[in-house]
């Protein structure tokens, strides 16, 4: 066994490696149900986190030459991130269980010594009722923290609260 390399914060200057176009997962020409996913990252005081790197990864549609499956967005002065992607379908879970359509999200920022992992589900999906991860969360408010709400024609919105009464459910993965 080799000892793991520990995580360290991304810090405030990660934009040196930023490529803003990475926030558009359809930029290579992928076809499908195009959606925008946006939201704000807020700290324990409700103040915007303006220097975060927000990353998404989705196992569906499968990554290909046309669809990277991965995106990265900065947060702006209001703490807002914004992605363009394809709406995921259901994904196989462990055993014979299906998982409801979702994205994995990782949040990196100054003040985070390691990423915060969460998931984004979509309101109105019948499969949410039987999703094994969502069903582990008993508190309805906490459960709702993982579900993006429709906004506008093809938009979904989800705010991420790092701390406090409305704290988002983060995953121990």
């Amino acid at each position, binding site marked *: 066994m080799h000892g793991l*390399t520990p995580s360290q914060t991304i810090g405030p200057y990660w934009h040196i490696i930023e490529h803003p176009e990475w926030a558009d997962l359809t930029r290579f020409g992928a076809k499908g149900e195009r959606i925008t996913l946006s939201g704000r990252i807020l700290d324990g005081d409700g103040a915007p986190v303006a220097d975060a790197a927000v990353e998404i990864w989705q196992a569906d549609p499968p990554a290909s030459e046309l669809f990277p499956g991965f995106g990265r967005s900065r947060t702006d002065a209001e703490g807002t991130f914004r992605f363009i992607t394809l709406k995921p379908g259901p994904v196989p879970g462990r055993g014979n269980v299906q998982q409801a359509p979702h994205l994995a999200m990782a949040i990196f920022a100054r003040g985070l*010594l390691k*990423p915060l992992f969460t998931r984004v589900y979509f309101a109105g999906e019948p499969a949410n009722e039987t999703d094994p991860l969502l069903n582990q969360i008993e508190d309805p408010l906490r459960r709702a923290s993982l579900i993006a709400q429709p906004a506008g024609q093809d938009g979904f919105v989800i705010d991420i609260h790092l701390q406090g009464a409305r704290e988002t459910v983060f995953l121990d993965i």
Partner: protein
Amino acid sequence: MTALAPLRPIPPEADPPYDAPAYRSTEKRHPTHKLLPWVHTVTELTGPHFSPARFPATTDLSVVNGKQALGERIIVAGKVMDENGRPVPNTMIEIWQANAAGRYHHPNDQHDAPLDPNFRGEGRVFTNEAGEYRFISIKPGRYPWRNHPNAWRPHHIHFSLFGSGFAARLITQMYFPGDPLLPLDPIFLAVPDAAARERLIARFDLSLTEPEWALGFRFDFVLRGKAATPMEHP
């Protein structure tokens, strides 16, 4: 039945906490609820692949537009492997750092130290089939920050790696041997175990050093690897 083996849990000694009071920026940004335990599925066990054709490599950070950056030229090389010792081939490594004076090419960096027109501090390299990488840069300078009175960050280079799946994602910092700022740095010290902290420090390596040209430093990355026996969620 999916038989995907989950990744090993991160050992506590190598795991900096979210709440690290000595690093003040963690105060309002750390979660207070217990994290939700979750056994890895295809979502966590797969991740992005970057090809050098679409994401071209920049393996020499020390030259911009044919002009040489100021500072001490260095070569950084090593291996990317997983905890099981398996090399991670053809994987992308993102690199960013301050210039020799300790200033980032970034609008928010207001440190009163000179910018270098021949240094941007941005790079991207790929491992080969054996998991090896190598790049050329200049030794980044140390810089003050406002965490506490007279706070200075040690020499460091920032790295981002993707590994085998999204749960293996790693963003970290590489430090340099013998830096007297290391025992004073709350970010470095947030890693609980001294042996794990040592793994963040590169080794000077004369065999990587090129005579009359650049000093060599060796730094290996170890990413999360799969557990030996697949565990199934009950």
